[in-house]
C-alpha cells in the first residue's frame, strides 16, 4: 500500500513521458471549463425560489405571506423571487452569503426554527438582520429593480411623490426605512 502511494506521488511530480503537452493542457482546460459550468449551475440552483421553498419553514411561513403582496402578484406580472432581495448580486458578496448559508444548514439540521412558535420567537432577530443589511447597502437589492432616476414621480400618488422627492432623492432615507413589511409580514415589533 505504501509502495503504491509512493509511486503515485512520484508520478505526480515527474513530467509526463507518455502524454503530450497538448493533451494535458487542453484536456485540463476543457475539464476546468466543464467544472466551472457545473459549479455555477449548482450555485445558481441554490439561488432559486424553488430551492428556498423546499424547506418547510420557508414554504409555510414567509412564502405564504408574500403571496398577496405586490411583489408577488400585480398588474404587470413582474415579480421578485427570493434571491432578488435576499442574495447580493456582486460575486464576492454572493459567495460570502453562500458561506453564511452554513448557518441556515445548521438551522435546518438542528431545527432552530422548525415550528411556527420557534419561528415567530426568532423572527424579529432575523428581520432586523435583513433590515440592517439593506440599510448598510442603501437598499441595493431594491434599487436593482427600482431605479430612482427612472422613477416617474408624476405617476405616483401625492404622498409617494412627497416622500420620495423629500427623503429618498435627498438621500435622507433609504427604501427599507419606510417599506418594511412590504414583502413579508412584520414581526412582533414590540418584542425586544
Amino acid at each position, binding site marked *: 500500500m505504501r509502495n503504491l502511494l509512493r509511486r503515485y506521488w512520484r508520478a505526480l511530480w515527474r513530467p509526463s513521458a507518455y502524454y503530450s503537452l497538448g493533451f494535458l493542457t487542453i484536456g485540463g482546460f476543457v475539464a476546468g471549463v466543464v467544472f466551472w459550468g457545473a459549479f455555477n449551475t449548482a450555485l445558481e440552483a441554490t439561488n432559486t425560489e424553488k430551492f428556498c421553498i423546499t424547506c418547510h419553514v420557508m414554504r409555510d411561513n414567509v412564502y405564504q405571506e408574500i403571496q398577496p*403582496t405586490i411583489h408577488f402578484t400585480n398588474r404587470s406580472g413582474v415579480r421578485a423571487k427570493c434571491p432578488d432581495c435576499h442574495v447580493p448580486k456582486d460575486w464576492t458578496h454572493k459567495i460570502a452569503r453562500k458561506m453564511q448559508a452554513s448557518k441556515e444548514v445548521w438551522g435546518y439540521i438542528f431545527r432552530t426554527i422548525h415550528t411556527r412558535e420557534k419561528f415567530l420567537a426568532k423572527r424579529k432577530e432575523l428581520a432586523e438582520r435583513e433590515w440592517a443589511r439593506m440599510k448598510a447597502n442603501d437598499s441595493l437589492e431594491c434599487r436593482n429593480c427600482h431605479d430612482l432616476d427612472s422613477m416617474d414621480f408624476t405617476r405616483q*400618488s401625492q*404622498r409617494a411623490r412627497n416622500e420620495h422627492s423629500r427623503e429618498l432623492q435627498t438621500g435622507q432615507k433609504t427604501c427599507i426605512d419606510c417599506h418594511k*413589511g412590504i414583502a413579508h*409580514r412584520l*414581526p*412582533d415589533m*414590540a418584542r425586544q
Partner: protein
Amino acid sequence: MKFLLALLFCASAFAQHDPLRGPAPVDEVGRPAPLVNAENNDRKRTRSYAMQPPTIPHKTDNYQVDKYANKCLDCHARTRAADTQATPISITHYQDRDGTFLADVSPRRYFCEQCHVVQMETKPPVGNRFRDVDQLVRGQAKPPAKK
C-alpha cells in the same frame, strides 16, 4: 316570507329592481359589477358629520394591522407626524372608555379599519338622501337632488 317573495316576483314584472343586484331579473343570475380600486388621491374629504371618522384618502392594500404591527401608525402616530406630514391620530384615540388619557394608543382604537374606510372609485350603487346638519341649521327648504 313567501308573501314577500311573491311580492318581489310581481315587482320584477314591473321592471323594479334592487340597485345592488343590477338590472338582472330576480329569477336570473346577474353579472357582478367589475372590481374597482380605492381612491388614492390623498385629498381630504368632507365629513358628513363632525364626529365622523375621516375616510382614508389613499389605498391601504396589504397594510398589516395585527398584534405584531400596525402599519397605519407607522405614518399616523403622534411621534411620526413631523417626519411624514400625515394627519396624526386625534387625542380621542388615546382615551380608554372612562376618558382617562393613556400614553399610547388605546387598545379600543388600535384597529383603524373598524372605523376608517377607503372609498372606492365608483358611483354609489344605492341612492342616499342624507342631509348634513349644516344644511338643516341654515334652513334649506327642500332636500338635495337624489345622488
